[in-house]
């Protein structure tokens, strides 16, 4: 079953990036800051229009679709900085995740999300701002999951989190992966991401330089070049 195809060219940030995902796979995009990773995610989520290229989702061309339509189609983005509303309660954040759903369905899905992240159950009435950084990150993922997305996109989820929290978070991601969720991840922490992914892509200066299995990519010298910033 075809997942996602992105062929994408834009002079400013990203040039001719293509990737294909199949259902259930976990892909990670690596690269240093300014390499274009967030731009690719932005294009997939519908926050930015690519100047060239197409995005195909289960066979349908969605390049022109606005962000909220893509969400309805099953693409959920958890943006950099967690994507939670700190002035709203945990419960309200989750409710927002199921905004368009009939009440009964939404309640069901919230229960599912709480089963995955049980610590949220005790904090339902608390403002999301009282949660720690790592808990907020997990709330952001829980919120995205309410919509039962077919593709979960995460932008630098470990940013600003203490290493021990990042461990916990990746444990959760692994669990999600076991349940068959398709995940696209953008990361700076090479080691952690490679352990999780099925396929890895490396972006350097806006171009896709390597794609392959984690082992292949880890051994490829171009990975190091992309990170140390040695100019070609």
């Amino acid at each position, binding site marked *: 079953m075809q997942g996602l195809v992105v062929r994408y060219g834009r002079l400013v940030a990203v040039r001719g990036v293509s990737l294909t995902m199949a259902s259930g796979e976990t892909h990670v995009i690596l690269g*240093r*800051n*300014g390499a274009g990773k967030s731009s690719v995610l932005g294009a997939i989520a519908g926050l930015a229009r690519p100047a060239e290229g197409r995005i195909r989702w289960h066979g349908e061309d969605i390049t022109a679709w606005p962000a909220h339509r893509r969400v309805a189609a099953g693409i959920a983005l958890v943006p950099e900085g967690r994507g939670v509303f700190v002035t709203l309660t945990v419960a309200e954040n989750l409710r927002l995740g199921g905004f368009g759903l009939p009440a009964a369905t939404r309640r069901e899905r919230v229960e599912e999300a709480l089963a995955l992240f049980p610590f949220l159950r005790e904090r339902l009435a608390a403002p999301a701002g009282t949660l*720690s*950084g790592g808990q907020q990150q997990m709330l952001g993922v829980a919120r995205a999951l309410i919509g039962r997305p077919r593709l979960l996109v995460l932008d630098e989820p470990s940013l*600003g989190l203490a*290493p*021990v*929290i990042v461990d916990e978070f990746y444990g959760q991601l692994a669990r999600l992966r076991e349940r068959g969720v398709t995940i696209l991840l953008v990361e700076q922490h090479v080691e952690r991401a490679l352990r999780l992914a099925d396929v890895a892509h490396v972006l350097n200066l806006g171009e896709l330089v390597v794609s392959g299995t984690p082992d292949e990519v880890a051994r490829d010298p171009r990975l190091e070049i992309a990170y140390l*910033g040695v100019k070609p």
Partner: protein
Amino acid sequence: MIDVFQNDAFRFFLLFNMLVALGMYVVYSTGQLSLGQAGFAAVGAYAGSYVDVKLGWPLVPVLLAAAAAAALVAIPVAFGANRVRGLYLVMGTLAVTEVVRVSLSNLDAVGGIQGIHGMEPSGVLEMAVVLALAIGGVAWLMASPLGLEMRAIFDDEDAAAAAGVSTRTVKIIAVVAGAALTGIAGALFARYLSFIRPDLFGIGLSFSIALYVLIGGVHSLAGPLVGAFLITYLLEVLNRMQQFGLPPVLDFASPWRFAIYGGLVMAVMAVRPEGLLTRGAVRSLLAPLRRRVRRLRASAHAAATPARLWTAGDSAALEVVGVGHRFGGLVALEDVAFTIRPAEIVALLGANGAGKTTLINVVAGRLPLQRGSLRLSGASLGLLPAHRRTRLGVSRTFQSVRVFGHLTVGENVRLGLRAARDRARLPLGWLIELTGAPPEALARDLTLVSQRRVEIARAVASSPSVLLLDEPSAGMNERERGELAQIIRSLRDLGIAVVLVDHNVDLALGIADRIVVLDFGLVIAEGVPDAIRRDERVRAAYLGTMGRSA
């Protein structure tokens, strides 16, 4: 359309509007959007008229009296303005206009609602001379170091305080100076009419003045002048349209002219939200001039390595003892203590919410010292506000980069230099090199990483004995982090005591001489990097599986 200029009244009001716009510009250049300018004009008009009619003073003393009266009234307003921010400030100053107007209406000594009449007439010539002098004066002000501080406050008041600017004082000066200018304009206005009444200086005038500045563009002196000119001209042209033989279906003596004006205002805001003369536009107009200046300046700066500022030794640069801080019921810091000596790098580690930024804010003075003590080379810091601490030698950077976006790189750094006081100054050329960016670039046009370096250079420019860096490596790749590490080490070699907060464990463990680990507001470990790496409590609270590598 040119013959509107033949009308004497039009000429006068054109100049008048430009002068009041200039007055507002002085106030707003510190970010204080004052809608009280009509009130100051009224005070000046009345004071000037009173000494003119009742005491028979000549022109110049009349204008000085007007300026003084307006400035006097402005002082309490300025102090009040310091207590409120944003829209509260705007509404508060609007209240000033109305209160002044109603008060003057009720003051029989100055004629109540009837006002004063019988002033010596002045015309366009006097107004033109005053305007020219005012433009010269304001230009000089904005080019001076005080003007730099004012523009910094506009961009980011808290960062300006952290850079050593006495924000309260500068803001008060701005309000009072702007009021004085506006008062002079009011007095000349009164002389032109030979009478004044309170209802001539209403809320409508305050709004009009604000529009001149906001539509003209606030980032240069020319903006408000151009705004006043264009709007006055446009309204007059719309007023006179029937004289130009337009078909009678459009009757411009009617309200339509204001509706058209309104529509144009909306259009301008849609296209140029920052005003017609953006800072970018003015810069490109002045570009040839700047190139010449840059060539002159470039030769003056050799990037010499600076001499050591402080000597390493045993006496502490900064002592933190028993510091505690609560936000309401939430304990953010509990009995935190550590010492740092000159030429030392201490890294502060801990999970989000562990209290690292809170500690930096308490040391820097952004948060009040609730419990414990802070000593800088033995002297107590506890009660001093942030900008004083910077001037004494405690500099900091912010977690989310705070540079002055509308100032150039050079101006950002020079602002920091002003806080160096009587300490040895670091060479400007070396500081500019530290930023890694061209000195004439606008800070907001730079990448995030460059902005961080500009912020660090600005903090270092005040020759601090203690430098607090809050997450400087956020957003940097490995090469940039390496450069940052080099920079921090060179700062240590100058003798600066550097306190580093950062989540990049490799960076922190790599360059620090000592580590302090916070968890839930408590110090749970302190020591050299190797010991911390192996510490089980630190592992559990923060490091996790990381740190075991490398």
